[in-house]
């Protein structure tokens, strides 16, 4: 999954935290004007919310010369660029919100500006598009993520999911459903199911297994623990997911919590690995104009987690601010079966499948670069 943080997201999180009206649960704390219990100065994630590695020695560390080791620099590959500065509608991207691949050599690019999905093969040939702007079934207004399992494509918006089936003639909308608990990001698909991150105080868990009809079949993974329910809701509603269809494993990492947990599709923990060098950004409880809020710093940011369709997850995080010049984007490759991983270096990668590596860039204009490894065949 590919995500670029924007000030808008921060504002939305702030607004969400500010707007939740709950009764006070702890009389030793400060109660804001909405009745929310706040502990000003408390910084998140708190130590008790960072799970230990399992087995204990599992860890992902940045290599010492990380800043000099560029992931794509050492790869012998041919490249194809999708996207032009100015051209026909299907040739130029507006905003690349997410990309996904399947086992059929198909690349899906979710464009949240033009509200459609563009479909390409791995050689960069445009195969078609589906979805359109609007608020009805199969229409998008600000799609966030795309998840693919075989011929089933899930396009996820805030609180809304559209399900398409790939057919010989194109992509057919099969369902469109709402889920009140869904967050801003954190989706993957396997075996015809959508796994999604979402939380509300009424929910016991944060990862939900949904059928193509939107029926919840199972849920697992503990929410973030805080006496401040607003804090608990905000942090538990945001995370990254990756599905390994081959091994039937779901990788889960909650926003700003430096532990990647692998679950079986039934929700049993398979392994946990710690990101030892990741510095979570400071999330501090405060009262803003009488309301509970979370001040978010600009240090580390977990932004990428996906499966390569074979034996690995790829995980990426920024180590500093969001500005182009002052962050390093670290990439790790983790064995789905064991949780052991390696630091690949710095760079930018949106998807890996077979011998192809997909990079999404918005500078100077939105593009996808497909690298085809020469040693892949």
């Amino acid at each position, binding site marked *: 999954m590919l995500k670029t943080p924007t000030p808008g997201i921060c*504002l939305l999180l702030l607004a969400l935290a500010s707007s939740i009206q709950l009764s006070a649960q702890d009389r030793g704390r400060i109660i804001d004007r909405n009745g929310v219990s706040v502990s000003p100065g408390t910084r998140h994630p708190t130590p008790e919310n960072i799970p230990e590695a399992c087995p204990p020695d599992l860890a992902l560390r940045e290599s010492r010369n990380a800043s000099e080791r560029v992931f794509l620099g050492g790869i012998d590959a041919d490249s194809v660029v999708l996207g032009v500065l100015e*051209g026909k509608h299907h040739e*130029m991207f*507006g905003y690349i919100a997410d990309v996904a691949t399947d086992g059929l050599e198909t690349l899906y690019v979710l464009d949240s500006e033009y509200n459609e999905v563009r479909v390409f093969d791995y050689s960069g040939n445009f195969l078609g598009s589906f979805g359109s*702007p609007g608020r009805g079934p199969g229409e998008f207004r600000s799609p966030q993520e795309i998840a693919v399992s075989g011929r089933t494509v899930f396009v996820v918006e805030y609180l809304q999911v559209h399900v398409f089936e790939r057919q010989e003639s194109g992509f057919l909308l099969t369902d469109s459903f709402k889920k009140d608990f869904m967050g801003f990001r954190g989706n993957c698909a396997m075996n015809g199911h959508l796994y999604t991150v979402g939380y509300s105080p009424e929910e016991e868990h944060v990862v939900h297994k949904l059928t193509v009809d939107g029926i919840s079949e199972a849920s697992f993974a503990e929410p973030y623990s805080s006496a401040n329910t607003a804090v608990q809701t905000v942090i538990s509603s945001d995370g990254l997911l990756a599905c390994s269809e081959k091994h039937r494993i779901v990788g889960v990492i909650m926003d700003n919590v430096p532990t990647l947990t692998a679950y079986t599709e039934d929700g049993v923990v398979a392994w946990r690995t710690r990101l030892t060098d990741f510095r979570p950004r400071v999330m501090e409880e405060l009262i803003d104009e009488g309301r509970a809020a979370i001040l978010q710093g600009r240090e580390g940011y977990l932004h990428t987690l996906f499966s390569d369709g074979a034996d690995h997850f790829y995980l990426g995080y920024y180590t500093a601010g969001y500005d182009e010049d002052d962050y390093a984007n670290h990439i790790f490759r983790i064995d789905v079966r064991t949780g052991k991983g390696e630091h690949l270096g710095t760079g930018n990668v949106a998807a890996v499948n077979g011998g192809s590596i997909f990079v999404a860039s918005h500078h*100077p204009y939105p593009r996808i670069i497909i690298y085809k490894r020469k040693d892949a065949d």
Partner: protein
Amino acid sequence: MAQSHISPERSLVPPWWVWIGLGTISFFLFLGLGIFGIVPVPVGLDLDIAWSHETRTTQYIPTYVPNNGKELVFVYIGSSTCGFSNDESLPALIERVKVELHRKAQAHGLDFSAVGVAIDWHVPHGIKHLEKFGLFNEIMTGENWQGTGARQHFGGSLSGESSTPQVLAYVRSIQGGGVERSDQYYHESDKHLLARKIGLDGISQWAELGLPMPTDILSLDS
């Protein structure tokens, strides 16, 4: 008989160049007073002193004529209560975008209009906010996100992320319009989004790149 001491060379009549100079000064003085409304000018005399088109395009000046055909519409959406919408660099940036888009529309043979939307509850606050962004053909404010301005530009074929500041560019066709024609004569086509840029960075980057837009949608033939 006394002799006259006045020689023909020392006549009291000023030389010809003085008359020409005085005439020129008077003309421009009268013209200037007329422009500023200090002295009356003949009815129907439309005084329009202007630099050439190329050198005056730092500000968008709307023309109030009926459009009849394909139109490029630019929309600025901001709010008096949004910090980023009130960034001091934004008004100049929006003005620049308006001017450049107007020029692009003309180059493609399209009509152009600029719309300002302020997401505000309080109408005077919204108007005051939009005043910072120069001239528009049309403005909309009031009722915050439930207002017509918001609903018009975040729904249907213009559906998109609800945040400010942002700019939209879209094309539509207006047919049947004319002076003093009522609504029943008008036909508006579907709107096709050309670009939606969100946030200061998004708008600024778009401007730096020269406001790229899909050429096939922008084309007069499409």
